[in-house]
C-alpha cells in the first residue's frame, strides 16, 4: 500500500517513508494500516477504538490520541509534508499532501 512516499508492506510487515525504514509497534502498524486503507476519509475515534482495540465503549483516557501522536512522531517527523491530520471534533485523516 502506498500513500505519497509512505509505503506499507503487509507481507513483510515493514513500513518505509521516502525509502527510510520506520520501526513500528504492532499496534501502531495496525493503526497506520487502518488509516491507509481509509486514506482520504475521516476516521473517528470510535471507529479506531472498535477496529484496532475492539473496545466497544469510550474510555475516559485519550488512548487514541496518545497512540496517534506516537505514530505521527514516527511517520511525519522530519518530513516537509504531514500525512496524518487531525480533524477537529471528528477524528483523523491520512491523505496525500495537496
Amino acid at each position, binding site marked *: 500500500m502506498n500513500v505519497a512516499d509512505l509505503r506499507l508492506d503487509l507481507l513483510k510487515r515493514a513500513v518505509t517513508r521516502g525509502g527510510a525504514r520506520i520501526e513500528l509497534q504492532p*499496534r501502531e502498524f495496525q493503526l497506520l494500516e487502518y488509516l491507509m486503507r481509509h486514506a482520504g476519509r475521516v476516521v473517528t475515534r470510535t471507529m479506531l477504538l472498535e477496529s484496532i*482495540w*475492539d*473496545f*466497544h*465503549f*469510550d*474510555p*475516559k*483516557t*485519550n*488512548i487514541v490520541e*496518545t*497512540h496517534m501522536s*506516537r505514530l505521527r512522531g514516527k511517520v511525519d517527523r522530519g518530513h516537509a509534508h504531514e500525512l496524518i491530520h487531525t480533524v477537529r*471534533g471528528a477524528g483523523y485523516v491520512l491523505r496525500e499532501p495537496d
Partner: protein
Amino acid sequence: MFRSTSQRLSALYTAAFALSVVVLGAITVLTTRHALAVQVDARIRSESAALAQEYATEGLDGVAQAVSERDRTPGALDYGLVGPHGEAVAGRLAATRTTSGWSVLKLREGDGNLEPIRVLSVNLPSGHRLLVGDDLEHVDALDSTVLQAFAWAFAGVVILGVAGGFALSRGVGRRLAAISGTAEAIIDGDLARRVPVRGSSDDLDRLALTINRMLDRIAALMESLRQVSNDVAHDLRTPLTRLRQKLEGSLAGAEGSDPAIEGALGDLDAILETFAALLRIAQIEGGARRAAFRPTDLAAVGRTVVEAFAPSAEDAAQSLSLDAPAPAIVEGDPELLTQMLVNLVENALRHAGVGASIRVEIRHTGDEVVLLVVDDGPGVPDPERDKLFDRFYRLERSRSTPGSGLGLALVAAVVRLHQADIRLIDADPGLAAQVRFSPAAG
C-alpha cells in the same frame, strides 16, 4: 447455654412438668399413707372389739385360746394377752409398760429384725391386757411402690421433655434458619430471594408471607427508582445530543475557535458520558448480556488493555505492567470484561498519582481465575472502600478531578453479572482491586 428460644421454652416446660410430677407424687404418698393407716386402725379396733366380746362370753381362757389361734394364722394381725403383772399369757405381742390406747411396739420377727408394730391395748376386767397390732411393713411397701412409680414417671417426663424440646427446636430452628438465610442473601444483593413458605398457615408461615410481601414491596420500590433514573438518562440524552450537534455546527460555521463553545461541548460530553454509563449499568444489570457469554481468555484481555494504556501511562510518568503468564479462561462477555478492566486500570491511573506504578496481574489460583489491579498510590481508607462501588460515590479528594463516579459501579455490575467477587484490598501502600472468578459461576 440455650441459644434458641424454643430450646429455652422446652427446658422451662420440662422443668415445670417434672416439678408437678414430684408434687403429685408427694400428695399421693401422703394421702394413701393416711388412708391405709385409717384402714389398719379400723381393722385393729374391730378385732380388739371382737376379742373383748369373746372375753365377755367365753372368759379369760376363751380369749387366750382365740389370741393364740389368731396369732398363728399367717397374714393376720399380731396379737398378745398380757397378765396383770406384765407376764405374757398368749400371743407374741408382749408389753410391760404399755398403757391402754395406741402405741408403737418393737417386735422381733422370725428373721431377727426388730419391727415396729402399731398396737391397740385394751384393759380387760380381769386386769389382763389385750394387745392387737399390725406391722407397718405394708405401709412402707406401699410407699416405696408409689415412690418407684413416680420416679419412673419423673424420668419419663424429663426424657420426653428433653427429646420433645430438641425436636421442636430443630424444626423451628430450621425454619428460622431459612428466614435468616433469605435475609443474608438479600443483604448480599440477591434481591429476588424469598422465604420458603410451607403452606401450613401457622405462625411462622404467616411471618414468612409477611416478610415476602415486604421484600416484594422493597423490590418494586427499587425497581421504580432504577426505572426513573434510567428514564431520565434516556429522555435527556436525545435533546442533549441535539444541543451538542448545534454547538458543533456553530463552531464549524464560525471562523477560528470559540473557547466558550468548546468548554460547553466538553461539559456536554461529560453529561452524555454519565448518562451513557448509567444506561450501560442498567443494561448490564438487566442480565440480557449473559446470552453473549463465551469462554474468554482474561490474559488476552489484559494484554490488549495494558498495551492500549501503556503509552498514556508513560505520558503521565506512570508505569503500567502486566503479569499474566498463562491463559486464564473464564466464561463471560469479552466486551464487558474488557470494559471492566479498562475502568479498573483508568481508575488506578487517575487516582494513583504521578510517578505511580500500576500492575495488572491475572493468574489461575486453584480452580479460580484471579485478576488483580494493584497501584502504589495513596490508597483508600478502609471505611470508604466498599462505598466506592456505589453509583456517584467519590472520595473527597477526587471531587475536583474529572469522572462520573460511575466507573466502579459499572465494574461492580459486570462482576455481579459474571457471578464473580470483587474486593478492594489495602496494598500498603496503594490499593489493590481483586476480582475472583470461580469455575462454577463461570
